[in-house]
């Protein structure tokens, strides 16, 4: 009897990958469903298969609008559909996160090595983090400064319309929660910088933006000022096409600027090599 049960169990497990994809015939589908209802072990196997397919599948992230639509629908829903079961009272780490206004997604691991601020982080992380940074910014009511010229607005819009052109700034020499993103096209020289949570600087200092090349040299892309809320929005120009650079960093410099960085990196990020990033999927570099 046990042999029969074990055989059935093994049969079900072997069917799970196709069950996940919805590619079983009706009879097998029902058989798996029935088994799953009674077998926690196989439900665990199903969870594993579902999770792995989601992690393995080569699918570009969903459009930013989906998140917006979800939150709009939640906001528009009446109180009867809200899950509110107890009076809203924040507690624990969630409450502290809310109070601190740090509703940002997890930062990728910073333990990286290589060109300027470490190895380029994965494209998946870049896209997800940059989209999330952008969305989180939008969520708290950010609206970028009205740019003087319409052409500048259009250039910014063009850059921001492509989430693949977004590179998060998630690295810092300081234990701060600043974050940001740069939008850029590989062959262009326009770079739109968004940064949040930058520390306030003394009156005689400004942030200077540096772009780094593979030769470990850097060029200045100009000085920017953070608002009282630590936010920066700036359309910058790189001397060479963006593809020539492997990283960006903001440092605190005298208000007239410096020829080279003279302080630690307050916020920065690395870019994947453009030649490889033309493909969304990229294996880790061997060196």
């Amino acid at each position, binding site marked *: 009897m046990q042999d029969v049960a074990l055989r059935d169990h093994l049969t079900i497990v072997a069917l799970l*990958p196709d069950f*996940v994809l919805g590619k079983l015939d009706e009879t097998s589908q029902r058989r798996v469903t029935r088994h799953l209802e009674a077998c926690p072990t196989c439900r665990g196997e199903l969870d594993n298969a579902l999770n792995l397919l989601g992690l393995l599948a080569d699918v570009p992230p*969903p459009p930013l609008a989906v998140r917006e639509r979800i939150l709009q629908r939640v906001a528009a829903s009446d109180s009867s559909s809200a899950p509110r079961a107890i009076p809203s009272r924040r507690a624990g780490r969630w409450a502290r*996160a809310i109070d601190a206004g740090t509703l940002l997604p997890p930062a990728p691991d910073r333990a990286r090595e290589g060109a*300027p601020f470490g190895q380029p982080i994965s494209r998946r992380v870049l896209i997800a983090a940059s989209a999330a940074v952008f969305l989180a910014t939008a969520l708290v009511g950010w609206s970028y400064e009205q740019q003087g010229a319409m052409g500048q607005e259009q250039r910014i819009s063009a850059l921001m319309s492509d989430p693949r052109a977004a590179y998060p700034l998630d690295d810092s020499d300081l234990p701060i929660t600043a974050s940001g993103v740069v939008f850029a096209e590989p062959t262009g020289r326009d770079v739109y910088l968004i940064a949040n949570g930058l520390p306030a600087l003394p009156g005689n200092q400004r942030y200077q933006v540096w772009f780094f090349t593979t030769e470990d040299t850097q060029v200045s892309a100009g000085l920017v000022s953070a608002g009282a809320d630590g936010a920066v929005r700036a359309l910058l120009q790189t001397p060479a096409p963006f593809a020539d650079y492997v990283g960006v960093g903001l440092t605190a410099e005298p208000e007239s600027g410096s020829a080279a960085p003279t302080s630690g990196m307050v916020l920065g990020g690395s870019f994947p090599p453009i030649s490889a990033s033309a493909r969304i999927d990229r294996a880790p570099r061997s060196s």
Partner: protein
Amino acid sequence: MASAVPEPRNSPPAARIRVLEPVSRAAADVSADLVPDPELIAAMVAGEPEALGVLYDRHANVVFALLTRILGDREGAEDLLQEVFLRAWQQARTYDEARGAVRCWLNGIAHNLALNEVRRRGRRPRIWRRAGGEEDGSDAYIACIDPAPGPDSHACSRVRDVGMAQALEQLPRAQRDVLALYAAGFSQSEIAAKLGEPLGTVKSRMRRALCQLRESLPAYGVDAEWPDD
């Protein structure tokens, strides 16, 4: 809110910027990324939509990839992704931590919705269509099984996450090939036909590969959430 950055030092120009003195900031301790998923669910139950946003940022990509593979089209997957998170909002109080991780709960909602949609459509899901418009039902996906493995050319390169790619590299080549086709949306019998292998062989390779990944992914920092975590 922000602490001042120390005065810049007169150090020689350096391509690699060095560490500044730490700036303490209480907010660093309370970043939303430190809030565990179950606490987000509790906040949703208490009516905090921001918690849903954080949960979405954390899990939407994986759930969306899953939906897209099952349905075979992005448009349908976008609709269902919306539905998944709306249901998560509405049914947050039904989440039971003892029954598994939040990711598993979300995947389960997504899977049920996707299978219902497949049934509703009354047909097998379409194979994922690549950006070039080429139907993947052709042999296009064989391209991801490169006969000359290399850092950029083997099946791992189909996977965006570096940690995942590293974990895949530890698998035998035959298992990677099976997984690459599975991740592209092929059933096991379709994979067997494409590889010219017996179905039983494909199933056992699949089984071993899934088990090994389950064991090894956490060591590579992949944000895997398994049922028994």
